[in-house]
């Protein structure tokens, strides 16, 4: 019994280390690739490994939604737009004044240090091992029940935010069609303007 328990714990640790390392490495890759297309592909790997981490903290529905919404819909939209505007290379660590790079690294590093120090000082003592949770914690039925009872206002506000963003996206996408005369639109974009 104890051997099986520790074997399960070791398996969880192995999966955690693999997913956490993939998560951090792909996060660094997103920032350091010069081609946005490769950055978007690395972000898909980042989202997938984050979904594995969510599964390990028994957030099953959020993990599924992460893969469906983020790695599915949002990243496909990203890849379409990157393919539409064409590859625009940019040397990641060159260009711009060097003091700007230095200040950016300093600001991000101090932000990270601040978060770590706050976690260690304020919550380090109380963040012990957590006990086990119920079997339906994080399941779709449980999420749906508390979403439609305790957190109904958040649910409705989320729907309004999504509606406003969709309307804004349509307005932004169709803005140039009204101002630019038909002859000024190049042939490759006329189709896009008619479809949208």
């Amino acid at each position, binding site marked *: 019994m104890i051997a099986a328990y520790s074997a399960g714990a070791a398996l969880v640790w192995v999966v955690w280390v693999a997913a956490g390392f993939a998560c951090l490495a792909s996060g660094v890759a997103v920032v350091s690739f010069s081609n946005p297309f490769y950055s978007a592909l690395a972000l898909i790997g980042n989202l997938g490994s*984050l979904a594995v981490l969510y599964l390990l903290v028994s957030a099953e*529905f959020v993990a599924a939604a992460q893969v469906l919404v983020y790695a599915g819909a*949002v990243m496909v939209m990203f890849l379409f737009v990157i393919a539409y505007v064409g590859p625009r290379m940019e040397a990641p660590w060159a260009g711009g004044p060097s003091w700007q790079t230095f200040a950016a690294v300093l600001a*991000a590093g101090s932000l990270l240090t601040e978060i770590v120090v706050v976690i260690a000082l304020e919550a380090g003592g109380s963040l012990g091992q*957590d006990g086990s*949770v119920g079997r339906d914690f994080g399941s779709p039925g449980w999420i749906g029940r508390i979403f439609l009872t305790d957190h109904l206002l958040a649910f409705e506000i*989320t729907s309004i*935010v999504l509606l*406003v963003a969709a309307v804004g996206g349509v307005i932004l996408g169709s803005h140039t069609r009204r101002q630019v005369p038909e002859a000024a639109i190049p042939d490759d974009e006329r189709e896009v303007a008619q479809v949208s």
Partner: protein
Amino acid sequence: MTGPGIVWYLGVAAFLFGTGALGVLLRRNVLIVLLSLEIMLNGANLALIAFSRHVHNGAGQIFALSVMAVAAAEVCVGLGLVVALHRRRLDLDVDALSELRG
């Protein structure tokens, strides 16, 4: 208790947030700035979900789902702006887009 404690998850979340902040501050391509913003949002999401498991409260997971919806909205508007910039033949460099500067 099996597996790593919450502090490990918070460490990964903090590192992700720092990486995303570095990308937002350092990179000049609008698309990569948007991708780095997604990394920051995901770092915050990981911390929310880890705390939700720690305190046995579902509000953290609800908050994470709301953050995902807001991120989808942000990507919708941001990519709409990118497409509009591209149609106006403007450069997709955040340093070059300074028309609103006072």
